[in-house]
């Protein structure tokens, strides 16, 4: 074979490999799980709300479940729907806040990781966040938490949707600038 052909072939090989890799990510990105198949939930106690640890900070145990949910477009999309259906909108608006704090900024009273958001929804918080443990299935809480992460640009861009529900003219979720979560005291 002539070398140009071989070059083409090699290129095709690269392209195929790239396509396959993309497809693999794409599959994961879009895979729909109708029943809970995610990794097991972190044992209680692993999620810290505060950032201060006496003395040397201990490592936070790795949490595959959170990453699993926020890396999947289907879960994020479901979360967006559930956010509305469970009336999160009433208190947090489309991320800008109302009765409850804004969710699209960098400020997090109780931590902005998906595990911490999941914990806040499940446990509730003393100044008015209701506890939804036993009221919303655990998987759906993870989905809502994953969607909430997209509001501040903290879920991977490839899972965030291009559109938004409602009237908010904030940027599409996939184009929200990432605001690194800071656990900050609020005046509230």
């Amino acid at each position, binding site marked *: 074979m002539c070398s140009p052909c071989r070059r083409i072939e090699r290129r095709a090989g690269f392209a195929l490999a790239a396509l396959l890799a993309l497809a693999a990510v794409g599959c994961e990105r879009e895979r729909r799980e109708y029943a809970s198949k995610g990794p097991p939930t972190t044992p209680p106690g692993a999620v810290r709300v505060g950032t201060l640890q006496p003395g040397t900070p201990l490592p936070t145990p790795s949490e595959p479940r959170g990453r699993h949910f926020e890396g999947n477009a289907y879960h994020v999309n479901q979360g967006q729907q559930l956010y*509305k*259906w*469970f*009336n999160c*909108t*009433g*208190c947090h*608006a*489309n*991320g*800008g*806040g*109302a*009765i*409850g*704090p*804004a969710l*699209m*900024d960098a*400020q997090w009273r109780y931590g902005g990781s998906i595990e911490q958001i999941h914990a806040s929804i499940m446990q*509730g918080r*003393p*100044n*008015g*966040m*209701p506890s939804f443990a036993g*009221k919303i299935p655990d998987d759906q809480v993870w989905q809502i938490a994953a969607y909430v992460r997209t509001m501040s640009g903290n879920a991977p861009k490839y899972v965030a949707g291009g559109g938004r529900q*409602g*009237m*908010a*003219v*904030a*940027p599409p979720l996939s184009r929200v600038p990432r605001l690194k979560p800071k656990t900050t005291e*609020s*005046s*509230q």
Partner: protein
Amino acid sequence: MKRIAMMVIASLALFAATAVDVVAVTPTSGDWTMPAGNYASTRYSRLDQINRDNVSRLRTEFTFSTGVDRGQEAAPIVVGDTMYIVAPFPNTVFALDLSRPGAPLKWKYQPNPEAAAQGVACCDVVNRGAVYWQGKLIFNTLDGNTVALDAAKGRLLWKTKLGNINKGETITMAPLVVKGKVLVGNAGGEFGVRGWIAALDAGSGKLAWKAYNTGPDADVLIGPAFKPFYASDRGKDLGVHTWPPEAWKIGGGTVWGWISYDPKLNLIFHGTGNPGPWNADQRPGDNKWTAGMFARDPDTGAARWFVGFAPHDLFDYDAVNESLLLDFPVRGGGKRAVIVRPERNGFIYVLDRRTGQVLSADPFTPVNSILRIDLKTGRPIYNPDKQPRNGRVTRGICPASPGAKDWNPSAFSSRTGLVYIPHINLCMDWLSGEVNYIAGTPYVGAEARMYAAPGRSRGELLAWDPVHRRAAWKVDEDLPLWSGALATAGDVVFYGTMDGWFKAVDARTGKGLWKFQTGSGIIGQPVSYRGPDGRQYVAVLSGVGGWAGAIVVGKLDMRDNTAGGGLANAVRDLPAKTQPGGTLHVFALPAH
């Protein structure tokens, strides 16, 4: 505006001929025992030491920090040598000794309400004030308790739990005491609560009666004495039949605003809040008895009449505003006992106090959501072009959800015959969508984004001549006007702005006479009293917040223009103009 002012001056002689009287006399003692000043809710002080000519010399006498930097909507209460103030959540009550320099703290009382109540308070964690009654100071807590203290010592006398936060109920209103009964109503119209007004025995705190504003007649205290003026309010159990099945149980109709009392007719008048959810498509029917007002017998709670201001409310037009009880000639006839209500739906109503008949209803802000008020039926004629539908954005609705005027009360001066209405001019875009009822969570089903009414300032102090049904003058305020007004016998009107100015204007012309920067936005209720030293004082709480100030105290993110119920969008500039605060400011003329 100048021309209007001239007209007023020209017509002053006419006013004298058509003397406007206040039903219940303002106490002459110099005390201020209830937020509205008197049962007629005129917020008029008979004190006249401070007048148009000398008000420019007003200066701060003392200040006091409430220790809370949330919206300060309360009216200070003054009895003898003591001033009482209630702070926003956690609702600490302070008694200040006015007989000593600097008004030091006499006592304070901490009711320790549940912190979680903050999560079901729709529009900041406000409290609209306490009331003094026969040696007791009575107030409500955000978590749904009514509390009576010994006014001298601050000792707890009784505490009655009326609201349940797990259902979304809070209490933000100031109680009113009528004939030994403490009148209290719930808040939570954005949480699918069922609205009620209750009467507690002032001595014991025991429940005397409780009337719901939705549901069967027996619950609403509708009986043989109920004689509404309009046919559409007559019939059995309309509080059930004007709703989809069971929807009345979560239908709102709360009582978080003002109550007036006419001793001659022995009637109290109270409004009812918006129906739930905001999304009107989910509740076909008139949704009685929400968004209207009742006249009730204070002894039994029995309803005497009702009139609806927003039947099948489309836009959260709560009908909780103040009812000013005035007597004046209507349409060339003799003097009549009337109610003047600057209503959230954009119209100033004049109602017959005895029957509830709507005598007139004139718009006082740009209104396009309602075409007119039909005087034959008493009902608003809604504009079909502004009728919201699920999933469709309806644009340019005026007034916006907070109405032409929200809770912040007007004042009336019998010297000028004018009603001083602090209010707003906002419009909005609106999107309805299906909402699920989940107890204790918001039951709204609509998004809004608000903005200034085209060509109008966001705030306005309007002086309205109720006899001739026309504006006398107005003062444009750039920011929404969210404070109450106070009128005095010195022909001065006081009010505050959301960027912290406390202002005095001429009651006859609206001319600015004096202003003072208090450091944080004013959304409170100014009052005036005579101190133990015989001097006249003016007091107001400063501290931005409330629905309109949530953008500042709630740190809302304005990239979302539906934040804060969409009202934040109309005050994007506010965080740059004021900071949270919570300070009482008391002013007087120099002693010498």
